[in-house]
């Protein structure tokens, strides 16, 4: 088991939230540390560019 998994179970989540903002809010309401990512579809959602990016970045 990875230390981060032990850490998760022993100390509780310290989360990065990607997607629905409400999930970050509900974690915050439980005093759980969380940051919400300002996520947008990579490369504007263009699948060819995403495939290219995955090889380059």
């Amino acid at each position: 088991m990875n230390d981060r998994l032990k850490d998760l179970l022993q100390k509780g989540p310290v989360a990065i939230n990607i997607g629905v903002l409400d999930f970050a809010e509900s974690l915050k309401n439980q005093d759980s540390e969380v940051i919400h990512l300002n996520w947008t579809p990579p490369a504007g959602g263009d699948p060819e560019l995403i495939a290219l990016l995955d090889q380059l970045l």
Partner: protein
Amino acid sequence: MITRCLIRKKEYYDSVFLMRVAKQIAGQRGILQAATLMGTEKNKVLLADIGFESVEISSATPNDLIIAIRAENETILSNTIENIDQWLNQGVGETGALSYRTIEEAVTHLPRFNLAVISVPGQYADREARKALEQGLNVFLFSDNVPVESELSLKEFAREKGLILMGPDCGTAIINGIGIGFANRVRRGPIGVIGSSGTGLQEFTTLVHRFGSGISHAIGTGGRDLSDQVGGITFLSAMDALESDRETKVIALLSKPPGSSALEKLIQKIQLCRKPVIACFLGLKYQPTHEPIGCKLVRTIDEAASLSVQLATGNLPSLSEKSQQKLEERIRQHRSGKKSEQKYIRGIFAGGTFCYQAQQILQDAGIFVHSNAPLQNNPKLKDPMHSTEHTLVDMGSDEFTVGRPHPMIDSGLRYERILTEAKDPQVSILLLDFILGFNASLDPAGELLPAIDEAISEAKKRGESLTVVASVCGTEQDPQDFNLQFKKLEGAGVFVFSNSAQAARFCGLLITGGS
């Protein structure tokens, strides 16, 4: 004591900034004196005054940075000088909300993250989950529409890295008392649970809470984890995690029946597990007389919760929450005023697992219902929009939720469906579920009450009587408050249970006429 001077040519810094840097360096252990200055004539005189003089210093120009440090010993001095950029390149007191766009970026700035909660559209989910795993994060993957091949490869990658990937299509988890996704606020305690469905976990954890015990961790796996294709990778990792978790005394497993090879792996794991394991595989056709897999097998979620509490605490909680008298009174009430054509039950569910479990319970009572998500041997509803005879509809399934919010968040579709069912004179019983907790609608009972009222009065106008049975999944600590929701429904004449299996069993009684 040892002294050294360093010149960095053509590096300009603001003088106030340099004064701060010098102060910070001087504050380090073993540093006796530190000066960081631009090489002006005036500054050179200052340095000479405190005993820093060298050929380098005198050759420095106003555009060169002079670093002069006096330390207790060579190690401290060379360490400080080696790390000088750490002081010169520090950023302090950033203002304004930071906004990270990628997981890598966030992890670079705050390395203590241990979880990524991902709910991006399905086509991007694989990519983001993979990046999270690459960064060493566990993943709660709420997104659905992730191909099973992706699921397998993500889970293999997670296993390789010693991480856990909950999902895809994982709705619920409670880790160390913190609810993630659609989760309820429940007591902490000795019972760990692993479940393939979010509402299943919600029901289990709230019942454990209701029975007076609590949850160490509730780990979601996504609905396909125990398929042969995925092989239960997350179930197995979660069992390892719960087995080595000191808080957890008992482990409960909730799932639909596993695939045969996945089951084999699971059995091996259960047999080696040092903690008691209770399993509930909803939809298993028979009640096994013996326990071939080395653990306690139960039929329903409430039984799983009750047995878990018994094994963990020694006390067996009672499943029946209503007195026999009250139940009989209600059955009498139900029978009076029914017309002969009122024969059928219509279940309008927000929770898929509740719909599924209710089908199993009714089947055990000899009642076969139509459903858009049928249990084995039940007929599939031809048109999910139209009920026929006995029907239980899972309103959270894809045909209803594509491009619309889930019925746990928005009651709109269920509202309309209740009114539609109420127009059918053959309907006798309406079975509903109400799911509380984080991220669910803030007043699910209140939102459907007008529809329930209208349905009842509509039936009355026809000279019929409509029986409405409901279950509420939640706790008094939930944002919606279980007690408030419960009372709201009772006040409208709904027969309410805090346990969806009990609600279904009661409906079985009503239909078969048992007492």
